[in-house]
């Protein structure tokens, strides 16, 4: 057992202060300390991407990040996307529903968070750019086709309904 450290993390706009063990991962911090269960764990060794969250806007593996490393950071999780009052889905979430971009849904928060970063950086990604961005997220159900379509649709909607200028690289 080691001495706990005071850690301050802003998650989905809300500030949390907790005394945590240095070995506690950010994923476990979010899930068990803050009870934000939407960030799932698939491998806990950084391969599958299921646990992806945004740390200061960058898609990151919360299973490979210690909570203490996120001290002072802004973290965005899947819980931060939906409209809190109305429950209305974020356009990326709605696109995954509309294009059947999920089956069991366990990996989906990770894909959506990766997509959130991608479309923030590049509102009009080509298929090759989408594929490159999603290459670190594993899905065992869909075979990726509908996920690709979901990201295309989300990009289109977030650009205000204009058709994607490039559908393939």
């Amino acid at each position, binding site marked *: 057992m080691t001495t706990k450290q005071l850690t301050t993390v802003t998650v989905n706009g809300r500030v949390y202060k907790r005394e945590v*063990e240095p*070995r*506690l991962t950010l994923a476990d911090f979010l*899930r*068990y300390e803050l*009870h*934000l*269960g*939407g*960030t*799932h*764990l*698939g*491998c*806990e*060794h950084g*391969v*599958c991407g*299921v646990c992806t969250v945004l740390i200061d806007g960058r898609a990151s593996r919360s299973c490979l990040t210690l909570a203490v490393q996120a001290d002072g950071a802004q973290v965005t*999780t*899947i*819980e931060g*996307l*939906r409209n809190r009052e109305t429950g209305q*889905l974020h356009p990326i*979430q*709605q696109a*995954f*529903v*509309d294009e*059947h971009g*999920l*089956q*069991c*849904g*366990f*990996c*989906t*928060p990770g894909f*959506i968070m990766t997509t959130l970063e991608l479309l923030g950086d590049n509102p009009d990604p080509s298929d090759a750019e989408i*594929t490159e961005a*999603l*290459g*670190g*997220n*594993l*899905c*065992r*159900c*869909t*075979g*990726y*086709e*509908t*996920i*690709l379509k979901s990201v295309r649709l989300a990009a289109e909607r977030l650009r205000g309904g204009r058709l994607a200028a490039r559908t393939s690289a």
Partner: protein
Amino acid sequence: MATELPRLPEQLPTSSVRYVGKEVKRIEDPALVSGTTEFIDNLELPGMLHCAILRSPHPHARIVKVDASAAEALEGVAAVLTPEDVKRWANAHVTSPAGWGTHCVAIDKVLYVGEPVAAVAAVSRALAEDACELIEVEYEILPPVGTAAAALAPDAPVIWGEHGTNVIQQRTYNWGEVDRVFAEADHVITNSFRWNRCGANPTETFGCVCQWDLTDNSLLCHGAYQVPGFWGLARSFSLNLPANKVRVISHPQGGAFGGKGGARGTDIAALLSRKTGGLPVKYIEDRMEYLLAGSSQSWDRHYEASLAVKADGTITGLKVKLLDDQGATTETYGTISVAKPLAAFTGNYRIEAARYDTTLVVTNRAPAAPYRGYGPPPHFFVLENLVDMAARKLAMDPAELRRINYIRPEQFPYTIPSGNEYDSGDYEAVLDKVLKLADYQALRREQAAARARGRLVGISVVSTVEPGVFDWNAYATVGVQGIGVPEGARVSVDILGNITVVVGFNLQGQGQFTVAAQVVADYFGVDMNAVKVTMASTDAAPPHFGQGGSRLGVAITGAVLGACQKLEADFKRVVAHLMGGLPVDAIELMDGRFRIKANPAVGMTVAEVAGTMLGRSDLLPPGMEPNPSATSVWTAPGRNMPDDQGRCRSYLTAANATHVVMVEIDKETGRTEILKYFIVDDCGTRLNPANVEGQLQGAVAQGVGAALLEEYVYDEQANPLVTTFADYLMPSIHEVPITKRDFIVTPSPVTPLGAKGCGEGAIHTTPAAVVCAINDALAPLGVEITETPATPLRVWKLLKQAGAAG
């Protein structure tokens, strides 16, 4: 029973089908994309403890001593489960064949790396893992059995002393005049094949929270349970409890694909709860535990197989000799995957005679588990490669060789030599459609041009059957008992007309809750999203099985329709009575209204009838219960006992597909790239087409993984060399081809609404199709690959052997 259900969507009591067969959005999805679905690790209970398991580092060893005193003394540890506890409280797991199951924690010796030897319940998982490190286990190392061949060696160590042999079962099935057709064949194509272990790997591993109630000696298990009632029953055996004292609450699952066992984890968490006096104990299997010894590994197979072929291409016989490595125990139901090929042994073809020679052995590898398809995927990898080898021998186009051997449409229902009956199909129509979709002749020209430039390009045309809607009789040959797999649904209407469907299983990804809502909505003319579908725990649910065997879509449709019909009959009685005592058959249901046939303007809505039943009992027919609720339990009709050669009507439906695949092999590295991929399939009525397409494409991904990437590697001493996703290569978006697809619909004549099982789908076809394409690419070099996965190294070795490596 089933014969009275609607055979096609058009027979539903609606003038216009709005949901069934239409592409609808799944009712499951808004919660899943929001991260609010309660997967098991999201469940927290007051006072809950966390479990960690200490596992064997040895493939085969006697346990001399387990000293848990230091672990028990650690602050925050509530209990340590030792072999002594397990001996006192638990039984060995029930298996088929009987007698090859161990306890949840090894009690005298360990049989594989990763087998639990002790477990800890503590205030956190991290602390429980700390405590595991303090447990001292003294082992006496025993010689391991590393391979199936080693298991059969005369001087092999015997893993199960009480059996005196490493052979679980040796059985040969003869169907028809096998020796005659082989003697009369113009060509006999013979080869050996090796399918290495791969497996399910759902993104969520197994997890549970168990609580033992010491007051009435009962057990509550929350968990990622694929088949809740079945798991509950098994716990009653392993934990010495009456079955009605085991209550299972299944949580939504992050996939399963058959490979989500939880017997050991559940028993361990349950016994830890018992030992702590009844506190809830959570066990979440981590990925490394899963890869090492979860229900993660399937199909460890060595084949020798032969095809008898006439000069004109007629295939007359198939012989398959299988040596199957089940790993250390059979408690994860791996044996069943040896039995299942009987349901589709000869694939799409009119092969008159066949022999299946099976030897199932134990080794010190992890126990073999089910995986999507449950046995036929490796079998079809063998059969379809043999068909391609025959085509090369005869210099025939592989598509045309298949065409002349297909079962013809007018021959259905068709009984195959191994006994199962295929319900319907039109294989040639599927073939024609996929050849056109692929522009097959153009692909062949493209291949010829590529070959002329020295490139290794190959094409395959592979056809398979998907046995759908399993029944237990399919597994009788390995000791499974029983006929019939009940699946129930309860449909209830409340006082305001809202409809709820209660089922016995939970979400897993295939969208069956949506299917239930579609059927009810069309039956009673309500909005699909107004239908609530919910799961009941095992103590309250109707008889059920859950997901498995490409069955649940058909089965839940049957159950929901049956319940709707019962409600319809009761509601008609009420309406007939209220309309002045008309005969019941003067009333009909159409578009959500119970109306007088002779005067359709007069009628009552579903809500009005239900409201009357629950709120105005004085108006009901004499003797009628105020109960607008009905339960129906469906099972496949017409199933029968197997004969002495294992022959029976087992799987109810036979979907089929033909895949056309084009690959290129890189001479420098041996790496295979899938250039083009085309699919046409026929699974009868597509209840929710988007679901079906998703199942298909997803199964392609798993098939590509099995064909090219995924392998559980062991050394000769049964030490696992693959324990992370860095070693076990899961297909990513970069490796999975986006397939071009089309379909035909031959409605099943024997199922509700004409749907056929389609949940396992393309994994039957893709591994064979990819490897056949690789072999087509390699054919000019005179080498072929007969082992999965066709990794770059394996292919490169063949290129080198042929003098063609770059």
